[in-house]
């Protein structure tokens, strides 16, 4: 690019008439991502609270079922319980993240690190556990002969421990580089005041905040974003973190799921079982929902990561941000669908689930009933406990 050499004319600002100076389209202000802000502010909280409530209810039910009714007997049970825990933790942090995003991270630096970090841990563990479930089903159906040896309970606990460790290790950069700060290009403005009078100029380290009219009303505005000490780390990490999320948090589970479930479907279609079509449909639903939820977000994330350092117009970068916000919400939706897709499709699980409601109904009666009927209701409760549970120590957990 060619720029005219610095002539003295613009020193002579006494005679300079910059009122006539028009730049037209070439004036480049910083992008304010207004479309994305309005999408985040209007759509974000409402849809996120629906996701949060659905996710809390669904995943709590799965955990309650495992905790009180169904002992984790198989490898699948262990995985399903862990997925529910990961999803529950995820939706539990979601409202805090949304609130902080909209309130300039008012909860401070500790919340910033914890929320960003746990978001990352739960994302990785959730995705990797879904891949584990697919391999478990592959071993159970396709490699049925070996399944007794490979699908033991201690084995699955070790695998879950490995998954959570890997998820934690992959989240270390997030824990480390996400910081709570006020961006220096917004907070530190080096102003020359009283330009015309040529009087009070200030030093770089002597900052005047709120000199401009639009700055006076501005309160300190913090963000919870990446911050680095040098350019090279910044470059590498800004590419590496979404890169690892794309590869380990999406592509790896996707390929494992496609490979395992294809083999499962082929085996099921060969089998002479009248229930096979239902099983195939369930497997297809699991894969289709996974792709529908995560593919759009990961495509936008890939595009954003590749074009991040390129120069682009505000309109284009705003569109990418809007696409990211919308597709991320779709990806979050997967947390509410997992309990339905994995746990509640099972007949046994639905039976346990029914028992929970029966017990809750009985408990509700007990609590609502007046004191004078307490003896009667406690008898009802005890009898229900006997008939529903089978094992007495489980029922005792409900006496609280």
């Amino acid at each position: 690019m060619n720029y005219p050499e610095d002539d003295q004319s613009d020193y002579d600002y006494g005679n300079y008439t910059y009122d006539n100076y028009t730049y037209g389209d070439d004036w480049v202000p910083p992008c304010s991502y207004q479309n994305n802000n309005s999408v985040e502010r209007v759509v974000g909280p409402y849809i996120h609270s629906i996701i949060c409530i659905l996710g809390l209810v669904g995943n709590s039910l799965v955990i309650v079922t495992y905790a009180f009714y169904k002992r984790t007997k198989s490898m699948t049970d262990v995985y399903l319980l862990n997925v529910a825990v990961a999803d529950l933790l995820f939706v539990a942090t979601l409202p805090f993240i949304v609130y902080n995003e909209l309130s300039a991270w008012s909860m401070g630096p500790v919340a910033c690190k914890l929320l960003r970090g746990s978001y990352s841990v739960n994302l990785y563990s959730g995705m990797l556990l879904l891949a584990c479930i697919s391999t478990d089903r592959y071993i159970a159906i396709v490699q049925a002969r070996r399944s007794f040896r490979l699908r033991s309970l201690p084995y699955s606990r070790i695998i879950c421990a490995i998954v959570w460790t890997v998820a934690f290790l992959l989240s270390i950069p997030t824990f480390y580089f996400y910081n709570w700060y006020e961006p220096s290009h917004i907070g530190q403005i080096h102003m020359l005041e009283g330009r015309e009078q040529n009087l009070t100029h200030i030093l770089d380290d002597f900052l005047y905040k709120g000199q401009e009219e639009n700055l006076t009303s501005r309160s300190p505005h913090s963000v919870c974003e990446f911050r680095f000490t040098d350019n090279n780390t910044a470059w590498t990490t800004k590419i590496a973190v979404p890169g690892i999320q794309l590869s380990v948090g999406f592509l790896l589970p996707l390929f494992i799921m496609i490979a395992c479930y294809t083999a499962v479907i082929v085996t099921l279609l060969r089998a002479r079982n009248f229930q096979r079509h239902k099983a195939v449909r369930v497997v297809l639903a699991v894969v289709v929902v996974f792709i529908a939820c995560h593919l759009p977000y990961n495509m936008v994330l890939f595009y954003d990561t590749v074009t991040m350092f390129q120069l682009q117009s505000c309109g284009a970068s705003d569109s990418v941000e809007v696409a990211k916000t919308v597709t991320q919400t779709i990806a979050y939706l997967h947390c509410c669908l997992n309990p339905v897709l994995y746990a509640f499709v099972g007949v046994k699980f639905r039976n346990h689930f029914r028992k929970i409601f029966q017990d809750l109904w009985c408990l509700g009666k007990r609590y609502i009933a007046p004191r004078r009927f307490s003896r009667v209701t406690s008898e009802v409760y005890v009898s229900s406990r006997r008939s529903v549970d089978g094992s007495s120590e489980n029922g005792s957990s409900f006496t609280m």
Partner: protein
Amino acid sequence: MVSIKATAMVVTLTICLLAADTSAVYNECCRRYMKTKIPFALIKGYSVQTLTELCPINAIIFHTWKGKACTNPALKWVMDYVERLRNKAQIVHNRTSKLQN
């Protein structure tokens, strides 16, 4: 029962959190640069956008009478302007400290 109570509490908390008054947040970033030079006379001050924070590119943002302008710190005129602004500040600093001593 405990878990149901806990769930109810968390749900209420969620709704309270999300319904809370939330102020507008503006994260500004320069994503490209001015192609032409700005007259020095327009400039009121500057701020520095770095890759090491949330934005993806380095930039010098000149605060002018016409608003903010994103410029490329790799260009000579941009850094000359920054230098000039700093010098002016330094001169005033020196004068002021002489007066006070």
